[in-house]
């Protein structure tokens, strides 16, 4: 999926009405659950404000908190690694595994490792990687990236999963019962977990005060991955820092409620140090985060706690599917994050939005997402990332619309109006408008003409 073709990818997704309508309904239900959960917390808006302020404070003093974390974690018996970029991260993880001759890595879900493309890096070096999160495993078997940051395979039906498991595990292709399918997954991954020498997890929060990594999951697979094998590797972005346990509580109250409407995830694990006889390594990853923190307008997305509330509420995401964005992070938050990685590659993303503002108002850390999308559009224009044809249309529009005489000529008759109007209403894409919608009919006289004919007298009416 190319990011240049978000609109085309979305059109293809829409053509399959079964998947599109199901995704829309399912995620809207998540949004409704989020509303209901928020309603039960009278101080919800204060929590959002507090969370936003804690993130701003932590990001403003990030170096200090990172050093504090490193000292505490080291004292706890954890080995801390620093990775400047994706390659350094992958190399560190590979070296840890290669030194111990580990053939298989079991993994819980981590968007950061998707961002770093860790899996292909290890696989080409002959290390098997087994995803243990159900949705993530489904995507791995189907050779697709995650379509949603909380529910990676949420765009798939149980029928899709039954077929996929039948192909890969030899299970019953016609049994779509979720409990049966979860059982197939368990039967196939549990032995891998029990036999693995190394397990990897991500981290939702990194607590500077205690040197702990917090992982929130519903399946408990992160706990298996972290607690079963003798080597536990945690990959985490440097923006995940929080100062202390008190501030962590604010985020824990917001995270699951915003994501799925639950008060808390089934498992909220506090990985503080290695078990007896085991080793724990934390890889702190920058990969563009410091650079983003230095962007005057676009550092806000570093506050993100990956709840996906913005995706669930986004009317465009729900009808496009997450894969249409062609990017690691998708939906509203993806639109404002991805151009910080590669402005040219992701130049079209800021236009995959109606700027309706719902995302901003569900965001638990109050990122002004739709304002940032608007801002990115201007940046794309300034960096020459807007198509020439669109820019030409806008130039024509400005010329006509800043000159009343030209404007009157352009709108004087129905035929010329219909030709020129798209330039400013829908910029010369009347055929795009007309594909699924009827084109509005121009009136027999414009308001301007009506006013002249009915309200002006004498010379004024003649324009003298």
């Amino acid at each position, binding site marked *: 999926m190319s990011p240049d073709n978000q609109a085309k990818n979305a059109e293809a997704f829409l053509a399959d009405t079964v998947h599109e309508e199901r995704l829309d309904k399912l995620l809207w239900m998540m949004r409704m659950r989020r509303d209901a959960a928020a309603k039960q917390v009278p101080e919800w808006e204060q929590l959002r404000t507090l969370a936003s302020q804690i993130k701003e404070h932590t990001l403003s003093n990030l170096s200090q908190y990172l050093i504090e974390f490193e000292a505490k974690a080291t004292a706890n018996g954890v080995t801390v690694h620093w990775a400047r970029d994706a390659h350094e991260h992958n190399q560190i993880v590979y070296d840890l595994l290669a030194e111990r001759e580990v053939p298989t890595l079991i993994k819980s879900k981590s968007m950061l490792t998707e961002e770093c493309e860790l899996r292909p890096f290890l696989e080409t070096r002959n290390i098997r990687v087994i995803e243990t999160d159900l949705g993530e495993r489904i995507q791995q078997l189907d050779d697709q990236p995650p379509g949603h940051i909380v529910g990676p395979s949420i765009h798939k039906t149980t029928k899709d999963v039954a077929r996929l498991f039948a192909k890969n595990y030899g299970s019953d292709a016609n049994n779509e019962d979720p409990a049966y399918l979860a059982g197939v997954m368990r039967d196939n991954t549990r032995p891998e977990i029990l036999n693995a020498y190394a397990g990897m997890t991500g981290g939702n929060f990194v607590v500077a005060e205690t040197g702990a990594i917090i992982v929130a999951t519903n399946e408990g697979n992160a706990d298996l991955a972290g607690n079963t094998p003798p080597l536990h590797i945690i990959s985490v972005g440097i923006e995940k820092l929080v100062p202390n346990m008190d501030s962590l509580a604010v985020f824990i109250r917001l995270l699951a409620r915003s994501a799925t409407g639950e008060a808390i995830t089934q498992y909220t694990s506090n990985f503080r140090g290695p078990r007896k006889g085991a080793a724990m390594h934390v890889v702190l990853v920058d990969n563009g985060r410091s650079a983003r923190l230095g962007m005057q307008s676009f550092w806000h997305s570093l506050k993100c706690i990956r709840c996906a509330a913005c995706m669930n509420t986004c009317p465009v995401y729900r009808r496009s599917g997450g894969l249409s964005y062609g990017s690691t992070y998708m939906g509203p938050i993806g639109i404002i994050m991805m151009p910080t990685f590669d402005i040219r590659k992701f130049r079209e993303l800021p236009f995959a939005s109606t700027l309706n503002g719902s995302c901003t108002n569900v965001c638990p850390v109050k990122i002004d997402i739709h304002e940032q999308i608007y801002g990115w559009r201007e940046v794309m224009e300034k960096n020459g990332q807007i198509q020439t044809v669109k820019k030409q249309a806008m130039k024509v529009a400005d010329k006509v619309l800043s000159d009343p005489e030209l404007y009157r000529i352009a709108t004087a008759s129905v035929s010329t109006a219909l030709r020129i109007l798209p330039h400013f209403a829908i910029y010369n894409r009347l055929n795009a408008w007309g594909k*699924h919608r009827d084109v509005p009919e121009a009136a027999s006289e414009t308001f301007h003409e009506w*006013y002249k004919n009915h309200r002006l007298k004498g010379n004024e009416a003649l324009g003298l």
Partner: protein
Amino acid sequence: MEVALMIPCYIDVFYPQVGIATLELLERLGIDVAYPKEQTCCGQPMANSGCYEEARATEEHCARVFGAFEYVVTPSGSCTHHIRNKFTAGADSQERENLTRNTYDLVEFLHDVLNVREFPWAKFEHKVAFHTSCSAIRGLNMASMTERVHDTVFSKPKALLNGVPGVQLVEFDRVDECCGFGGTFSATEEAVAAKMGYDKLAFMQKAAPDYIVSSDMSCLMHLQGCARRQEQDIPFLHIAEILNGV
């Protein structure tokens, strides 16, 4: 009170009756309305597309035409939102400052400035599905939004419609979900835009309204295009037409 009427470009060409209803309604309420005939557009289509350079001359022209009036009233939440909150493509000037401060959507002007609540001349005995635009809700705070679950529920346009004898507002699902217009989005992402429009219509039609009404004609232009393509013949009206008496 010195009031200038701003007619958005798409209303000028496609929906002059909305401009006429707005003018007549304001006059009915005793306002002396000026219509500056040099007016064109607020520049939103260009600025919204990221093309600030291409919005500059149009925004500056708009500020020159309207900058001297005490009030500027327009039947469009989206144009008002652009002028009040996003009007930065042109050079800084006193005119621009005045326009940004003095521009009101028609609903706001009636509700907040004139404080009108009764429209006895405008009998309208029909079931109405009212669509509030995202600009009006989240840009101008003309109605509460469902995301903010602890806020008091209110709607300025519905408060006005409740003052029209006979109007029956119907409830429908996903009341403040975007209709899919989104300016240039409606062309660049036409397939998603149209599906959003179809879905919005389906939610509304379930409540069996006689009319679909909004204070933003651009949303209605899109929804009407979707409805006609699906051979739905439900009529669409701008709120000004009902408040003035159809």
